[in-house]
């Protein structure tokens, strides 16, 4: 079952403008959906359409199976969101900011301490937000989004401006939330960040969804596009042995071979060893998703 379902979404800020083009997106229940795209690709615009902050030109956006504009309060009761920079009243303390959220959402004030502890801000709860660091503000924004134990959490670039330890903290919180049963849509322009926690991935480029699937699907895609570089003394002899593989290039002492799946790697090595060829080095030239992501999203 999809918690968010977008079909053929078109959006532009002006009539003839096209920022989102026939966008389709499905966020399965209980997943961490990594929504990837370069800056300006349309991630935030998509999330704002999901939340009903922007009105689509055409297409359908369903959240919990309902159109958000038709069932706004009912759906928002089940959603927590953090869109880009958090909405915080700088002249108030973390306690006061959360008190405002708790009143709006009719949540028991006791929850304030719980969420502050969850995001590691309990000791700074009385401090005015204007004196917070960027990371602290981001964590407070997350605390506000978590206050009512939402079933669906929309996080737009939640690690923006955070240091590595802050990013790790946020990652842990997201994983814990998923264990507790929440569905999370997490947008980012960093694949490495999403790769570590996402169960599903959607990649958007210039307003169009160019890939959507599970992390395994993405892994498979990654291997289908990978090249293995081998340092060997006789590249020509090796080429003759590897007839089943697509050879990318042959140069003295190095052979580059395209592989389609990870099982190809041991198979290829065994064939070379059986053919009496010494192997000095094996390298994956496009060894991480980041490079693949770059190749997909770059013009």
């Amino acid at each position, binding site marked *: 079952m999809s918690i968010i379902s977008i079909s053929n979404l078109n959006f532009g800020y002006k009539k003839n403008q096209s920022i989102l083009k026939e966008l389709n997106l499905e966020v399965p229940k209980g997943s961490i959906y990594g929504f990837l795209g370069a800056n300006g690709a349309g991630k935030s615009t998509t999330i*704002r359409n999901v*939340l009903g*902050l922007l009105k689509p030109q055409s297409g359908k956006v369903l959240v919990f199976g309902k159109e958000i504009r038709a069932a706004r309060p009912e759906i928002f009761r089940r959603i927590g969101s953090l869109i880009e920079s*958090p*909405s915080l*009243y700088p*002249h*108030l303390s973390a306690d006061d900011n959360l008190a405002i959220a708790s009143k*709006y959402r009719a949540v028991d004030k006791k929850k304030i301490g719980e969420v502050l502890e969850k995001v590691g801000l309990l000791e700074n709860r009385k401090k005015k937000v204007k004196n917070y660091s960027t990371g602290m503000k981001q964590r407070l924004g997350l605390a506000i989004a978590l206050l009512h134990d939402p079933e669906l959490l929309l996080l737009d670039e939640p690690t923006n401006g955070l240091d590595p330890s802050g990013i790790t903290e946020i990652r842990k919180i997201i994983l814990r939330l998923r264990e507790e049963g929440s569905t999370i849509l997490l947008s980012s322009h960093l694949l490495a960040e999403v790769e570590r926690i996402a169960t599903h991935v959607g990649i958007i480029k210039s307003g169009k969804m160019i890939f959507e699937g599970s992390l395994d699907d993405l892994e498979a895609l990654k291997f289908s596009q990978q090249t293995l570089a081998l340092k060997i003394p006789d590249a020509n002899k090796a080429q003759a042995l590897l007839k089943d593989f697509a050879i990318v290039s042959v140069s003295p002492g190095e052979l580059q071979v395209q592989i389609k799946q990870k099982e190809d790697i041991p198979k290829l090595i065994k064939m070379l060893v059986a053919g009496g060829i010494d192997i000095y080095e094996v390298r994956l030239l496009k060894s991480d998703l980041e490079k693949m992501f770059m190749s997909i999203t770059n013009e």
Partner: protein
Amino acid sequence: MMSNIFIKTQSQLSIEWLKLKSTPGLYLALTCGLLISTLVFIAHLMEVHSLASLGGNPWGRYFTRGLAIFSLFVSVPFVVLLVSAVVYVERQANAWKYLYTLPTRRGSIYFSKLVMILLLLALSLFLLVLGLLLSGYALDRMHPEFELAFYQPNLWELGAKALHTWLSLLGLVGLQYFLSLRFQHFLLPLGVGILGYVFGLILAVTQMNAALYCPFSYPMLVQDFGMFRTEIRASIAFGGLSNIELYSLGFFLFFVLLAWIWETRRSVS
């Protein structure tokens, strides 16, 4: 049903009050009335004969002077600043995108903010009245020749005058609320407010009929403060209200409706 609405309104207002904690908007509302009454008090200390020599109950003259200073010179810039400051709190916090993803209707957020502005305006007027009353007694302790303690202040009359001023400012509240929501920054509503104040003053002083259609002129025309003629005001037009107050209410309803249409339909980018 009614008690549910009352609880919801009370809760929304308590949220608005919390948001205003330590903000210029709240300080402005709390200090304006007291500041005006203090200035009126100081002015009378400096010019003792201004009240003492006229005879009769001096409270009426003392109150009228305080209310005149507020209505003619302070009320318009005060409302412009107050409305902008209250709305700016959301802008500063980048909060609209958050507010409109809450399980609360947009209209509810819109109206609670408007009600808070009206209450703050009423609070300022109440503090002005209170300040004038207290400063009047203080003045009498320092200068018994004023004979303020000898007479009773007519609180009903004072309350009614303050209410007329409050009603005359509603049109301006509506206009400035619309501008502050429509243009999400401080400068434009403020600029319009300052220019409108000057324009309103000119229309009021010159007694042009156009003043009837300019909400900036209303607090200057709603009562006869003896500063300039108020011929275009029809004293009792409807239910004890003057035509100025009725126009003010009309503008208020028009701009509140316009702002509501805008606010409940706008995209938050």
